[in-house]
C-alpha cells in the first residue's frame, strides 16, 4: 500500500476510535434537556470560532497552494456557505432560535475553564508546529464529522439525532448540525487531497500523524468537558 493510502487508513481508524473513547461515550450518553441543548449550541458556536482561528493560523504556515485550498474552505465557513446561504457562525446562531436562544446569548457566552484549555491547545498546535502537523490537526475534526468515514455517523449527525430523539426537534430544523453532516464530508475530502500532494516520506507522514493524534486527544478532552458541564445543568 502506498504511503498516503496507508496514512488515510490510519486516520480513518483514529476518527472511528474517537467514538469508542470513554469521553465520547460519556458525552453522547448525557440525556439532553432543553437547557443542556442550549448550552451545547452556544458552546458549539464558540467551537466554530476556535476552528476559524486555527484554520487562519494553518493558512499562515502552509505553502501557497495549500493556502488557496484553505482560503476556499474558509469561504463556506467564514463568509457564505451556498448550502445554507450564510456563514457557519451565523448559521449556528440562527439554529439557536429553534431552542429559544437569542443572539445575545451567544455574545455573552463564557468559555468554561476546561473548554478554554482545549481551545488554547488547538491554537498551540495550529500556530507552533510544522504546517503538516497543524493542517492534520484541523483536518481531523472534519474527518471525524464525515459520515462516509465514521461508521454510525459523524459527530454532527449523532448530536442532531439526539436533539431529534430526546427533544423532538427534527434534524432538518437544527440547521447548523444538518449542514455540517454534509459540509464536513466535502471539506474533509477536499482537504485530504493535499496529503496526496505533500506526503512523500515517512517523516512527512509522521508529521501528519502527530497532528492527528494530538488533535484527537484534545477533541476527547473537549467532548469529555462538554459532557461534564452538561451534567451539571439540571432539568
Amino acid at each position, binding site marked *: 500500500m502506498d504511503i498516503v493510502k496507508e496514512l488515510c487508513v490510519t486516520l480513518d481508524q483514529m476518527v472511528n476510535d474517537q467514538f469508542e473513547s470513554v469521553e465520547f461515550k460519556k458525552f453522547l450518553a448525557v440525556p439532553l434537556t432543553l437547557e443542556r441543548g442550549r448550552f451545547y449550541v452556544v458552546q458549539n458556536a464558540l467551537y466554530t*470560532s476556535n476552528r*476559524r*482561528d*486555527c*484554520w*487562519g*493560523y*494553518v*493558512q*499562515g*504556515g*502552509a505553502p*501557497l497552494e495549500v*493556502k*488557496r485550498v*484553505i*482560503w*476556499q474552505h*474558509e*469561504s463556506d465557513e*467564514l*463568509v457564505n456557505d451556498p448550502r445554507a446561504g450564510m*456563514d457557519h*457562525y451565523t448559521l449556528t446562531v440562527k439554529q439557536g432560535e429553534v431552542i429559544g436562544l437569542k443572539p445575545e446569548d451567544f455574545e455573552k457566552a463564557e468559555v468554561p475553564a476546561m473548554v478554554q484549555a482545549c481551545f488554547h491547545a488547538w491554537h498551540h498546535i*495550529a*500556530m507552533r508546529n510544522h504546517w503538516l502537523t497543524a493542517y492534520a490537526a484541523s483536518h481531523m475534526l472534519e474527518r471525524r464529522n464525515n459520515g462516509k468515514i465514521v461508521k454510525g455517523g459523524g459527530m454532527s449527525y449523532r448530536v442532531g439525532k439526539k436533539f431529534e430523539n430526546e427533544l423532538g426537534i427534527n434534524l432538518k430544523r437544527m440547521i447548523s448540525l444538518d449542514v455540517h453532516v454534509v459540509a464536513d464530508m466535502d471539506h474533509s475530502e477536499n482537504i485530504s487531497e493535499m496529503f496526496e500532494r505533500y506526503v512523500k516520506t515517512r517523516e512527512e507522514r509522521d508529521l501528519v500523524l502527530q497532528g492527528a493524534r494530538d488533535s484527537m486527544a484534545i477533541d476527547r478532552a473537549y467532548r469529555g468537558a462538554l459532557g461534564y458541564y452538561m451534567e451539571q445543568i439540571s432539568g
Partner: protein
Amino acid sequence: MGTESKSLEAMWTELVRLCNAQFDSAPFERLLNVKFTKQRAQHYSIQMAFYVQNRRDCWGYVQGSAPLDVKQMIWHHEQDELVGHKAQGKLDHITLAIKEGEAFGLSAEAFERTAHLEGGEVCFSAWVRLAQRSWLEAIAASAILEMRNSSELIPRGSLSRRIGAIFERDLGIPIKEQINNAEHVVMDVEHAHMLMQVARKNATTDSARAAILRGARESLLIDRVYRGHLADMLEALN
C-alpha cells in the same frame, strides 16, 4: 469631536507620518537611488515575489487571531492577493508578480530556482513573529505596509509608484506594462483604509491604540532593514 475620536485621529496622523518617514530613512534612500539595470530589476522582481508570499503567511496568522468580523474582512482582502477575481479577469498577486517578470525577461522557473535573500529571510521571520503577537499589534504590522504603499497617504509617491517610475526611467518599461506595480498602486490605496476601519471599532482604549502603534512601528523597522538588504543585493549586481 469626542476624546476617543481625537485620540483615534491622532493615532492615524502618527501612522501616516511614520509611513512617510520611511522614505527619508537611509535604507529607503539607498534603495530608491539605485540605478536599475535589467539584471537588478530581475533580482528585485524575484525577491518581491518572495515578499508577497511572506505577506500571505502573515495575513493568515492575523486572520487566525482577529475577531470574527475582522477575519471576514481579511478573507476578502486575501481574495485579491491570494486567489484573484477570475470573473473580472484579475490574477492573484503572486501570479501577477511572476507575470510582471516577463517584462524583465524572467521565466516562471527563475522564481522557483532563485534563492531567497538571506537578510530577507531574517526579516520574513521577524514579520511572521510579529503576526503571531496580539491581534491589534499583528494587524497593524501587516496593514502598515499597505499604508506605506498608498499614494493617497504618501503624497510624494508610494513605494510601488516610485519603483515603477524608476523602472520606466532606467529601463524604459512603461508602468502600465509593470502589471504588478500598477496593480499595487491602485489596490493598496483601497487596502490602506482597512486598519482605520478596524481601529474605529476596536481601538477604543489607550492601550489598544498603543498596541496598534507598537505593531506598526516594529513592522516599519523590519521594513527598513529589509529594504537595506535589497539595496545591498542590488548594489552588488551589475
